[in-house]
Structure formats: C-alpha cells, structure tokens
C-alpha cells in the first residue's frame, strides 16, 4: 500500500520501516484520527511472525507529530502488554519511547523490531507453559536451533495448537545465486503444527507439516515440488529434520545448476532468433526476440520454467504494428502446443521453437488484422 497523505515526519519513519526491515512488513490500512486534519496518522502493520502475520495498530497523533506513536496489539494478545513492561529494561522499548527522537527516521523500525522480539519471547513462554509432554520434549531438543519461532493459537471454537516455524538449511541461498538480486535473506521453513489437548489418545498423532519459502525464492525454486518424507510413529523433529534438509540441499543445488542450463538455452536461441531484445540475466527465466515475417514484425516472449528442460517453455507473440483501441499491442494467448522432448539437444529445441513461430506467424497476423478491424 502506498504511503499517501501521511504527515512528512511520520512518513519518513514509515518509509524507512518499509524499505529497511529485514523481513517484509506491509501496511494494511491507513486512516486519519484527527477531526480537523485529513492527514493519515494511524495505520495497521502486518508483521510476519511464525509463518503468519500479526496485526498491530500504530497510533500517531497529527496534532503532536513529534510525539512517539502508541501501539495497540491484537485483541487475543492481552497478556502481551504486561509482558512488554515487565521485561528486562535493556530490551524494553519504553526507553526508546520515552526518549523519542522524531527526526531519526529509523526509530519506528527499531521500535517494531524490539516489540517483535519481545513478542517472540512471549509466545515462547506461552508454548513453554503448555501441558503436553511431546511439545515440552520438542522445545528442549530444538532450543539450540537458531531462528526458530513458535506460537500458541487458541480460539473459542478451535482446539489449541502449537505452531513451530523451523528455518531449514544453514547455508545462505542468496550466496548460491550469482549476482543475487534479493535484498532480503531467502529462507525455507518447515511449519510443524501439533494439536494439543487430546490426552485420551494412546499414541500422539503425527503433526501437520508444510514447507514454506520466502516469496522471491519462487523464481528459482518451488517448495511445492518437494515431497516431504513421511513422519513415522513416535518420531520427533530432531530425527525428522536432517533427512529433509539433505533432500532440500540437493534440490536447491540442482535448481541453481538449472540456471546455467537456461542461460545456455537463451544463448542457443539467439543463434536462430538473433540477439534477444531483453533477457533475464540472473535466473534466465525469460527472453524476448524481435522477429519479422516479410513486413510483419512482432515480438516473441519466451518464458522458461524452473524445471526446464523437463518442462517446455511457453510463448507469447506480441505485434509491434497492431494496437487495440486502448493503445495496447495485440498479443497472442499463451502457447505451448508444439513438439518437445527433454532429451533433444538445446540447438534442436531452439530450432523447433523457431519453426513453430514461423508456422504460427501467419496465423498471428490474421488475429492482429481481425483485432484492428473490430
């Protein structure tokens, strides 16, 4: 959400928060609190925590914009307030708030980071208080693992659940990608959810497991493609994780090596199509070529999937001469119905795509002319 209509002093703090946060914080909504002013001086932040979001309302006052903001936490976290105030004074955000410097744009971010750290400790304490032998055991064995987050969710109608977000792999994926464009550290997490409060069951049921990755990682690697190892009866996380991490490590190495294959493919395409107008230089997922059939010139966008060459690329043709009434160039639908075999040489693949485009060009020209007449 764009930061609009926010008083400049507050906007400086909010913009710094949005652009410098180590994890992506979003603004859910903004609204004015003053009767006289239309400035937006209150907003809701969506802060990622334990593979979910926490919603905190930040209440500034446009009448005194130099004053520190006030924070209202979620309705279900009413015990978090006393936790914040009873914490170690060196970690307490109250010092930051009572010595507020509105000219320092990093203050809001450091306040939120401080509070989030406390929130993590608060949830840790709550989970630690859960009367469940398995959860107690898991906490004691997972303590050494860095960056683990946990939360206790309980609702009126829902049964209690303990959620763990376990960061996997110590190695940085960012470092594995040459010329990595990601600002935030890309991570893969295993979400483990233990249902609580079924004391009558003799053997505890397997937890619910799900792999989650940070958003930008999707251009390299999709966690949905990973088949999770089965959770055997009586297993614990410390037993389960090493095998999973080994599989992941291999899959990521493969995904990184596939970048090279795609790069090579784009280079091969340029031998038949000519020099590309545009190509994705880092993940090599996309390349655009200018093609002419007689006087009819058009662009060919080639999208290369992460599983290339097992999966074939998809194509979109875009005319550089025909525009619709809104001035947008006429485009073909996504095309993938052409002959393909993963076992072909890259040069064979490239020439087959070229043949298909030649074949399709007269058809596309007709589509373009039809669009013009309408």
């Amino acid at each position, binding site marked *: 959400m764009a930061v609009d209509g926010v008083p400049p002093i507050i906007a400086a703090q909010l913009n710094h928060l949005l652009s410098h946060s180590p994890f992506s914080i979003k603004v859910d909504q903004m609204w004015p609190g*003053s009767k006289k002013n239309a400035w937006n001086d209150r907003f809701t932040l969506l802060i990622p925590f334990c593979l979910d979001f926490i919603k905190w309302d930040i209440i500034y006052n446009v009448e005194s914009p130099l004053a520190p903001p006030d924070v*209202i936490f979620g309705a279900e976290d*009413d015990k978090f307030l006393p936790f914040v*105030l009873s914490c170690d004074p060196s970690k307490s955000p109250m010092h930051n708030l009572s010595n507020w410097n509105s000219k320092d744009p990093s203050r809001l971010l450091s306040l939120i980071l401080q509070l989030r750290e406390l929130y993590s400790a608060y949830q840790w304490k709550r989970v630690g208080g859960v009367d469940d032998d398995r959860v107690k055991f898991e906490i004691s064995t997972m303590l050494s693992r860095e960056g683990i987050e946990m939360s206790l969710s309980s609702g009126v109608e829902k049964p209690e659940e303990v959620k763990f977000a376990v960061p996997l792999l110590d190695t940085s994926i960012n470092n594995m990608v040459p010329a990595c464009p990601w600002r935030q550290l890309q991570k893969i997490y295993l979400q483990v959810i233990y249902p609580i409060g079924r004391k009558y069951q003799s053997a505890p049921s397997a937890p619910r497991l799900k792999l989650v990755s940070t958003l930008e990682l999707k251009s390299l690697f999709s966690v949905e493609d990973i088949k999770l190892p089965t959770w055997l009866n009586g297993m614990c996380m410390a037993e389960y994780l090493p095998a999973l991490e080994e599989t992941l490590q291999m899959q990521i190495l493969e995904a990184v090596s596939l970048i090279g294959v795609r790069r090579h493919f784009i280079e091969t395409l340029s031998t038949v199509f000519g020099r590309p107008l545009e190509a994705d230089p880092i993940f090599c997922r996309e390349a655009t070529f200018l093609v002419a059939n007689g006087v009819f010139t058009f662009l060919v966008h080639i999208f290369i999937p992460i599983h290339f060459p097992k999966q074939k690329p998809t194509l979109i043709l875009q005319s550089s001469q025909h525009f619709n009434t809104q001035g947008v160039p006429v485009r073909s639908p996504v095309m993938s119905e052409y002959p393909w075999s993963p076992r072909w040489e890259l040069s064979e693949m490239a020439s087959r795509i070229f043949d298909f485009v030649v074949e399709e060009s007269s058809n596309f020209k007709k589509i373009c002319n039809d669009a013009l007449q309408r």
Partner: protein
Amino acid sequence: MDDLPLQKVTISGPTLSSLINRFASSPSNTQGLLFGKFSLHTSSLSDESPSPSLSPSSLIATITGFISSGNSSGNSSGDLASLLRRTHHRHVIGWFSGRRRSPLRPSLHEFAVSQSLSSESPRVFLLLTTPFNDTQSLIHTHEYRVYHFVRLENSFETTPLDVVNIGPAFRGQYGAFSPNSELPCLPCNFQDAVSYVSGVEELYEKMLAKLDCLATQVEGSSSKVLEMITDTLLRGIVSANIALHYWAVMETFYFKL
C-alpha cells in the same frame, strides 16, 4: 482496601455525557483524571452461602467528576502526574483516555501509564474511542469501556460501568452522587477572591463598630432616664411628661438602629 476486588464502577449520566462531550470537542486525543470515591459493598449474607468469609466484600467506585489535561502528547504521563500533584491526589480514583478512531482496547502507552499511576492510588481506567467508520453516518458515535488495573497481577480487568440515571430504579443511589471532590486549584482567580473577601470583612467590621457605638449611647441614655425616674419617684412627683420623654428617646434609638 487496595486489595479488595472492584465490583463495578458507577457514573451519573450527566458526568458521562460531559466526559463524552469533552472528548468530542477535542481535535484529536484527550486524557485526564477521574474524581470520585470507593465505597465498600458488603454482599448480603445468606444462610445458603457456605463460606461467606472468602469474599466478604468488594468495592464500588463512583465517578463524580473529571479534569482533562488537554491533548495527550508525548510526555502525557508527565502531564497526568503534574495534574495529580496539583490535585494533591485527593479523591482521584483513576484516569481516562479518549482517542479517536481506534480499537477499544488499552494501548501500550495506556498500560504503561496505568502501571506507573497505580503506585500512587488511582486504579480505574476509562477508555473512550470513536468507531473506525465515518462518524457522520453513525448513530452510535462513541464507545467506552472501563478497566480496573490490578496491581498484583499487573493486568487490566474489564469492569462493568453502571450509568446512573433519573428514575425509580436509581432512587437509592442519589445519595452517592453528592460531589465530594474539591475544586481544582484556580491560581489565576485566587487574588480576586482574597480581595473580595477582605472587602466584605472590612464592611462588616465597620458596621459592628457603629453598632457598638450606638449600644453605648443607648446604655448611657437609658441609665440617665432611669436615674431621672427614680429621682422623681423619690420626690413623689409622677409626671406623665417624663414617661413620655422616655418613650420618645427609646423610639429614636430604635429608629436609628
């Protein structure tokens, strides 16, 4: 008395409406102190209750007035503290905070203020908000909730708020609403009041002096008349003239007075 549970908070309709009015007329946020008293509520003993000694009584807080410290700003807890000092903590039972268009639950700031004030004495916290939506189109324009800060547990407890109104159902409670908090100090008008009082006192003193003077005059003339009467009686001559003269003198005196 601090450790007794707070059963409920009562407020009179006019006090609540003036509090809401104060909040509605402020441009943004507002806060201040609540005045009133705590009264002991003893639960009616019945034969059926097995152990009446467990919770024999609780407190009822009655809000009778408030003072607003204007806009709540950065050092607002300082504002409240100085307000508390100015009122000498007398009859302060808690504080209130009004913030427009925000959720109806205590914020970090409000919790911190309640915690730091709880070491003094006030424990009631009244929160006023307006709904998120455009207040022009709403019938329900203000929301409020009362909390009780429990020092031992370091937490807020929602407490019911009784709004006492006119009507037979509330007759028994009228007694509780005689305002018992003093006026907050008004330093700017104090000199005027002092000079007014001394002026009135001076006037009274002058009047008293005049009365004293008159009284001695009357005393003197009365004794003179008495002397004359006894003298005449002794001489055996009773003259109606003298009696007439006496009454004339007395009449003049009363007329003068």
